[in-house]
């Protein structure tokens, strides 16, 4: 019984975390290119709404995802234009877009509130689904969940194994040097910001068409911020970022069960837990807290442990690139 419960919960976590994973991967590549897309929360919301609306009106999930992708990409394009071309503060533009996206979603989404609509089809994989434990956790999901897992590997492969990925890293670390080696820095930054935004859009539709079916006011609120924090926690490395997303998934999934199994704790504690955890993980990876933790280790281990835990953002993050 206990083991079945565990398997089922892990399977749910995998599914529930898939939008977070997708959004965090999108953000990872745009930040790797040097652009912070702070609008995540609003982008996810607006694309969740648009994705659902289009799928609802056409009855076609794929069209819904396409629409959501376009919305996410468009939001990212605004950020790219404002920051790369106009040199405006990425945080300011991103923050305003966060609010704008949420308000637009609520306004335009009115007619679609709580309508039953189409969903991403469930697609257990024959044979594999019957492998004990592994099959139950990994291979009884919808196509989106498989896609999100593949995405992690693809992003990792792209960043670390391909020439284009090397360029991506270079553009975010030292755009001047990348330029000197024939890379059109700003064009690449546009590209990755928009592609990252498209992924964020897919994450939005993943909520409204798979994980949290339908649309309601503030349907996905807060998840974008968590995705942003996960990217930092993950040190801009796809595997660690994914680990962070699943960690949050576990906590969120357990909220209901914990409320019953830990008596005496106010239920509000579990309600606010994801955001408390968000602060805690950032506290953990950031300079101050980590140094204090490291000082507990014997000096010889400090360096090794520190290298493993310390995260450094791309050096040129949020810094515009101007050619002479």
């Amino acid at each position, binding site marked *: 019984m206990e083991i079945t419960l565990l398997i089922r919960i892990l399977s749910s976590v995998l599914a529930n975390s898939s939008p977070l994973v997708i959004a965090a991967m999108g953000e990872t590549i745009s930040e790797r290119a040097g652009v912070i897309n702070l609008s995540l929360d609003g982008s996810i919301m607006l694309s969740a709404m648009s994705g659902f609306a289009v799928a609802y009106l056409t009855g076609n999930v794929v069209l819904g995802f396409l629409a959501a992708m376009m919305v996410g990409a468009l939001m990212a394009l605004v950020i790219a234009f404002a920051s790369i071309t106009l040199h405006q503060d990425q945080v300011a533009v991103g923050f305003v877009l966060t609010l704008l996206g949420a308000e637009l979603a609520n306004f335009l989404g009115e007619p679609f509130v709580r309508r039953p609509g189409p969903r991403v089809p469930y697609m257990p994989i024959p044979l594999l689904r019957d492998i004990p434990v592994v099959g139950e956790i990994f291979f009884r999901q919808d196509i989106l969940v498989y896609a999100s897992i593949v995405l992690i590997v693809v992003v990792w492969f792209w960043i670390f194994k391909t020439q284009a990925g090397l360029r991506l890293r270079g553009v975010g*670390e*030292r755009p001047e040097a990348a330029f000197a080696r024939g890379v059109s820095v700003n064009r690449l930054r546009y590209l990755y910001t928009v592609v990252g935004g498209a992924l964020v859009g897919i994450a939005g539709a993943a909520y409204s068409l798979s994980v949290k079916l339908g649309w309601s006011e503030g349907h996905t609120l807060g998840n974008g911020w968590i995705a942003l924090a996960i990217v930092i926690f993950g040190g801009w490395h796809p595997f660690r970022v994914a680990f962070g997303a699943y960690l949050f998934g576990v906590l969120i999934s357990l909220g209901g069960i914990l409320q019953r199994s830990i008596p005496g704790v106010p239920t509000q504690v579990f309600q606010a837990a994801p955001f408390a955890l968000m602060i805690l993980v950032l506290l953990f990876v950031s300079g101050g807290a980590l140094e204090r933790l490291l000082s507990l280790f014997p000096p010889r281990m400090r360096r090794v442990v520190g290298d493993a835990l310390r995260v450094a953002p791309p050096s040129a993050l949020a810094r515009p690139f101007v050619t002479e």
Partner: protein
Amino acid sequence: MKVELRGIKKCFGSVRANDGVSLTVEAGSIQGLLGENGAGKTTLMKVLSGFVSPEGGRILLDGKEALFSSPAQAIEKGIGMLHQDPLDFPPLKVLDNFLFGRDSGFLLKRALARKELLELSERFGFTLDPEAYVNTLTVGERQQLEIVRLLSLGVEVLIFDEPTTGISTPQKATLFATLRRLAKEEGKSVIFVSHKLEEVLELCSGVTVLRRGKVAGEIAMPCTSEELVRLMFGQVITTHVAEEVSLGEPVLELRVWGVHTYRLDLSPVSLQVRAGEVIGLAGLEGSGQRLLLRACAGLIKPSRGSLFLRGEDMSGKSYQKFLDAGVAYLPAGRLEEGLIPGLNLAEHFVLARREKAPFFINWALARGDAGRKIEEFNIIGSPSTLVEGLSGGNQQRALLALLPDSLRLLLLEHPTRGLDVESALWVWDRLLERREEGTAILFTSTDLDEILERSDRISVFSGGKMLEILDASQTDVEQLGYLIGGNRG
């Protein structure tokens, strides 16, 4: 490949960085490019390597006109440049740096590249670890990586912009051997940019001297250094000879005092500095001098030992307490650490005042004070000029003007970096005035000549260790260079 530049013109605003400059380099030779600060050397080389598009003039390669508008195109045409601060990716691995910019198809062909990298380094006697991160390499090793990388891209012309700043004497010897080999054995054209005469004399087969954006003259080797100086500055500069200053009470005393940071540990040192004394800190960047300065300023807490300022134990005191005790620290990056872009000069002077200020600012008074300082320090600007609008030299003057009047200990990082000879002289004059008032000075510089000339004593740093404290009159550039490289011979 024979390189000819004809009548290159480039202006930055009202500054004519290059004003009709011509230059010829024969294949298989090393051509020196000499000039004082701001003469236009780097600009000319950036034009040749595609970073800057000229407003006039032509570039001929083996007699054929070449047109390119980006560094990548220049490399395709066979021209590569090594920048003063190597233009690489410190957070990436050596191998990835080597690969970056080579068209290797969709996937990174690491195995192939590693083989090529190792072969090329072996040919030149370099030891580069492909898996090391570039930010763990010395500047010399980063240069080697760039050389190897450019050669692998088939470059025929190599430009070195002040390659000897920041490397040790043994590394310099290796570099020079490499340059000779590149020219003689591999038949490359090498352009060597410097403002150090002796290097040019030692290495080059011909020298072009720039002054204020124009060619001041061209000389074939051999020649004398007097000729070169005359071409560079238009006159022979008499160097200021430091007056004998009688040293006073001990100002700063370090007792088995060490600093620990994530990147670097400074092993324990003991040192005593007396009022009016000037101590030069020599060493490659990142060897611990900067750490010593920042820790002496109270910005970093030492991990052990104690620090006394005029007999008072300052251990555990805050930076503010150090300021109150008459310590001042001037870092190298002026607009990053020192000045505040977005604020004007008057605001800077208000902020820098150490004595208790009234809660409300009297702006009329503040502007008056600022005006006086501006005059006193010859700053070209007004109280309402934003600091980012000042030129580099004037920013340095402003920083000096911001220092409090009476100081016990002055800690300086590269006080004359980026300044031309005349501005540098002015800066040192002001500093030496302080010294006569009894201020002790600790400074770092990458220019060993400056250290030798200005210091009473010199302490040499290497890899986080303070090796030795030498009497400035008992040593020379040669000895310092070897110590810096970690050799004691």
